[in-house]
């Protein structure tokens, strides 16, 4: 497990992740969620600056009862763009953040994945599954059992 302490977010993240533009239609976002096992997808501009994150919760949020209509209109809502429902100023992490701290952060925020940003640009996504995989990898490394004196 010592090895885990050396891991940084960059060692475990998915680099160059799929991202959408603020103008992507919610219909396309839903198709993306159907096709991939994403919990959320980052929203970036042409320069890959992070503008927000759009999770399945954000998509559901579009269907909440509100003042616009008595009953939400499916087709109308699906024509809206990502920027209308995305979480703006999302929490992001740096690639050099120790993975042990990322784990803590996921738990505190009860979130499933976080965008990874370097110099203002999106460089990756890190999710619970990535951390679990890293823990498994770290546990395989050599460890000293308690009270064992190694022979010369």
């Amino acid at each position, binding site marked *: 497990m*010592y*090895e885990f*302490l*050396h891991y940084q977010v960059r060692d475990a993240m998915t680099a160059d992740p799929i991202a959408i533009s603020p103008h992507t239609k919610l219909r396309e976002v839903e198709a993306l969620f159907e096709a991939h096992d994403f919990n959320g997808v980052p929203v970036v501009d042409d320069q890959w600056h992070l503008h927000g994150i759009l999770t399945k919760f954000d998509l559901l949020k579009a269907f909440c009862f509100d003042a616009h209509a008595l009953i939400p209109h499916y087709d109308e809502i699906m024509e809206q763009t990502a920027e209308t429902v995305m979480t703006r100023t999302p929490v992001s992490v740096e690639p*050099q*953040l*120790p*993975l*042990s*701290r990322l784990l*803590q952060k996921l738990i*505190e925020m009860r979130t499933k994945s976080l965008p990874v940003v370097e110099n203002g640009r999106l460089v990756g996504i890190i999710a619970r599954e990535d951390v679990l995989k890293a823990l498994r990898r770290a546990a395989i*490394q*050599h460890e*000293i*059992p*308690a*009270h*064992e*004196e*190694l*022979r*010369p």
Partner: protein
Amino acid sequence: MTTLLYTHPACLEHDTGFGHPECPARLTAILNVLKTTPFAALEWRDAPQATDEQLTRIHTLAHVERLFARIPRHGHYAIDGDTVISPQSGEAALRSAGAVCAAVEAILNGEANNAFCAIRPPGHHAESHQAMGFCLFNNAAIGAAHARQIGGLERVAVIDFDVHHGNGTQAAFEHDPGYLYISTHQAHIYPGTGRRDERGVGNIVNIPLMANSGAAELRQVWQQDIEPALRQFQPQLILISAGFDAHYLDPLAGLNFSEDDYAWLTRHILAVAQDCCEGRVVSMLEGGYNLPALAASVAAHVKALMEIHRAAQRSLIKDILERQKAKRNA
């Protein structure tokens, strides 16, 4: 007068096993920075070995003997799940405690205003009868007891800004009002001690910080807790248990201090030392496990220790110039 730097090659030989975070590379990273030009004015000294007399002011003789009996001739021996020793660990531990004792003597002799001990193993978790938490001997407590004994000091303060609570130092001091122990640490992590209501005989000041606390919280507790307690105690010597694992990139905890925060805190401790005890400060390495962050933080800390002399020199020169000017005018 310059800042003294105590270290010893034996501290690099304390091998904790493959991948262990408390590794020799920590000290190498620190010494490499302290060998660069900005630190040329440091006066390097070899740390002597602590004597049984120095160790047993804090530890039971049984603890010292058991530790040496457990040191393996080859390989490693795990005292507990965190604390691993190897053939050179005994000498490293003696040099670490010895560094602090020698630094205390030098500072009390007026050989310098302050000193930094670049040592490992660290010390603040070690209790009178047991090694734990990477720590074998309690370097800070041994140094403080040495100052009381050889310097005849009545009041010695230890400030511990390692991210973990120094249970060993607290346990060594909690019945003796001649010591003050002040600790900032992250709440609810190892070793689990350090609640605010643990107050000793009024001489223990515990300041647990919630995860993600950083610059703002540090400044707040300095003002509310640390500085008032220090000034009220009027220490004759200040020791610093300088762990740098509250850094925002450290993998073992969750506080968010930066190099600048360590420099800020060091300058403020020195300012109080200047008022209470002619600037007498002995600082020693405890934790800090992200190597670049550790090296940068130690650099900021030691730079602040060295700067106080430049400031004092500047004011001395200013004094002399003003006196000369007054003489000319007379």
